[in-house]
């Protein structure tokens, strides 16, 4: 087990390192950073001066080294737009995104797993059909449209929920549903498929033969095995939610890290974009790593692979 964890950790670190290099090179792929910083009224000398002040004239690898060591200490430089440290800028907004991500994945799991189990218990029944419809709809509905429909229904017609903002828990209800619904179909289909496969296996027949209750068979024997691929999927989805809540954050005026990323791209605020890409990728990497470890713990067969 330890060897497995170490191997995965090594791999994760390698990926993290590569990602950090790619996100750093973005600065240079996007054109001359000094010209971007100097703005529209700058002359050639101004741009040269900025190049020296910011050290853009040094070899790229040296700059990367400096940036990486600063980043490891949590110093991502200063935002071109806000003229504030990027780290504090992101820290302010990450809590909203994380809260939303946790709520979203919880909502997705709490709805998708029971639905998947129900669908698998009665394949091709009306429940299965409804579950299928929900998952197709969830996959097909663009989140901005779904969000607006919810706003029209719950905020304007029924007036149960506030339209946008972050002031109270009620403000998070609709964003959670929209974000969670997007992840729900995949989790549900995977739960259903896993359950169907497990339910037809020998040990389930044995468990039933021993006279175990249907509930016990389902949750104690079947779900525990069927849930394994769902765990890694949920972890990846969680990573997606933390980085991909841009649309939801913009519709519901949540001002989280996703929205900051979107705005920073359109403002050419490269230090902020670099840091956010790195942080979002780290989420993916950490969650994928945790999923691997969790899988290995749940299923000993995985450890040797």
């Amino acid at each position, binding site marked *: 087990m330890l060897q497995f964890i170490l191997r995965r950790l090594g791999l994760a670190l390698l990926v993290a390192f590569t990602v950090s290099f790619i996100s750093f090179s973005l600065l240079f792929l996007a*054109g*001359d950073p000094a*010209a*971007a910083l100097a703005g*529209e*009224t700058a*002359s050639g000398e101004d741009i040269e001066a900025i190049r020296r002040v910011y050290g853009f004239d040094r070899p790229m690898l040296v700059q990367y080294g400096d940036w990486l060591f600063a980043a490891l200490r949590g110093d991502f430089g200063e935002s071109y*737009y*806000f*003229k*504030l440290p990027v780290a504090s800028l992101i820290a*302010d*907004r990450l809590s909203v995104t994380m809260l939303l991500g946790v709520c979203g994945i919880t909502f997705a799991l709490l709805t998708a797993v029971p639905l998947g189990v129900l669908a698998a218990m009665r394949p091709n029944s009306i429940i299965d059909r409804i579950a299928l419809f929900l998952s197709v709809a969830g996959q097909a509905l663009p989140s*901005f*449209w779904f969000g*607006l*429909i919810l*706003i*029209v229904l719950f*905020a*304007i*017609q029924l*007036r149960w929920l*506030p*339209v*946008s*903002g*972050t002031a109270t828990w009620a403000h998070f209800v609709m964003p959670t549903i929209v974000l969670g619904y997007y992840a729900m179909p995949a989790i549900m289909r995977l739960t259903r498929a896993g359950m169907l496969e497990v339910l037809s296996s020998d040990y389930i027949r044995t468990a039933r033969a021993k006279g175990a209750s249907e509930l016990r068979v389902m949750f104690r024997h079947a779900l525990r095995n069927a849930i394994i691929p769902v765990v890694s999927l949920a972890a990846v989805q969680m990573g997606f939610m933390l980085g991909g809540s841009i649309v939801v954050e*913009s*519709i*519901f*005026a949540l*001002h989280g890290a996703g*929205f900051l990323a979107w*705005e920073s791209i*359109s403002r*050419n605020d490269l230090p902020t974009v670099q840091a956010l890409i790195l942080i979002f990728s780290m989420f993916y990497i950490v969650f994928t790593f945790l999923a691997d470890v969790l899988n290995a713990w749940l299923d000993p067969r995985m450890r040797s692979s």
Partner: protein
Amino acid sequence: MTLISMKSTIAAAALIASVGTTWADKANDTLSVAFTKELENVDSYFNSSREGVVMQRAVWDGLIYRDPVTNEYKGNLATSWEWIDDTTLELKLREGVKFHNGEDFNADDVVFTVNFVAKEENGVKTQRNVNWMKSAEKVDDYTVRILLKDKFPAAIEFLSGPVSMYPNEYYAEVGPSGMGLKPVGTGPYKVTEVVPGQHFVLEKYENYHDSPKGQPSIGKIDIRTVPDVNTQLAELFSGTLDLIWQVPADQAEKMAAMDGFTVANESTMRVGYLSMDAAGRSSMEPNPFKDAKVRQAVNHAIDRKALVDNLLKGKSVVVNTPCFPSQFGCVTDAAVAYEYDPEKAKALLAEAGYADGFTTEFYAYRDREYAEAIASYLNAVGIRTDFKMLQYSALRDLNMKGEVPLAFLTWGSYSINDASAMVSQFFKHGSLDDARDDQAKADLDIADSSTDPAIRKEHYAKAIARITGEAFWAPMFSYNTNYVFKTDVDYTPTADEVLRFTNMAWK
């Protein structure tokens, strides 16, 4: 972006279905307003957005004030002013004015503010707003002199616009970042809360001096950042917002048809135009735009009236000048106007040796639908366009390098009501000058530096006649913007795209 337009159509359709009951905040005297963008810093010298200008006009005052309707200059923090010589302006200051924190306003504040912002290393974001000032000197407690680097006739316009007065003791202590979090001015509204990225709360300043801006009427203004227009509309329907602005024309039209909302349309100073590589800076070979006949053909090819009537709507008008018509020196009579005449355009192209037309790259950075409509007019006379949509900064970089043969661009003049803020920015051989015409530059140099209004007007007229006669640009139209607010809000927007809370009241 098709995604956005699809999104807005759906939302508008959905919203139309619901009948909004108005839940105005008149009862608690709080007007809720939405900003689309987040301000980088509330300190007006350290942001460059329109939202920042709105905050600046509410929280701070300038020495002089320009009436947005009559364009007449009136004293605000100064009561009178006089040119001692071409580069020295002496101002008498108003007595008895207090900043929001209780500090008295006097000559020390003016001297401090001017000396701080004029110093380039202090990093004021929009240098052109302040870099014409050299320094300020105190004559006595209520008399100051502002010294200019050079002759600068638009000084009064700038002093009534972006240059506002800061409290010296407070600003020296907290600096721009402190001012951004806890702004202090003399303006009609004081800031009571700043939550960066989320909202600002302004409260009526009870001791506001007898200013030409008028006295504030609404007690509290709550400004929230809501990036999505559809969300803003939903907030308006649900009664949690009272006023939104910069609303796209299609949504505004639908809102106008509903009860409970006032839709007001006003012109802005932004002008759309086609820039052509007349100087032959781009790598295009042969470059048809070096020929005036081709540039005139482009001008004749586009039905600008149709663009205004069908796409921009509202108070937009066809513009023939390389400046906004209300700007001082923007002499519209001097401009050569090109009527829509595709046959003439084809004839001019044939005369220039392009009877079969030609293919050119065509760039734009905003309003894709306008640019595409323009491209189809050009295609109709034989100018085939390879259309490329870029981010503003990327297009500007290309433009500075002189690699753009034809582009649809716009310019908002920073809301400065003087032709120097537009035509002089583009025709004085700067990096964005595609014409590089010595004759236009010579006239603009005189017009920009003379302090005699008659001489300025005469030379701007000459430059405009030259630029339009040679058809260096194809000026297109002015932009407009829509304001949507609840019917119990009384407000008449002005033509400079600045929200003025002081002029708002409950009905």
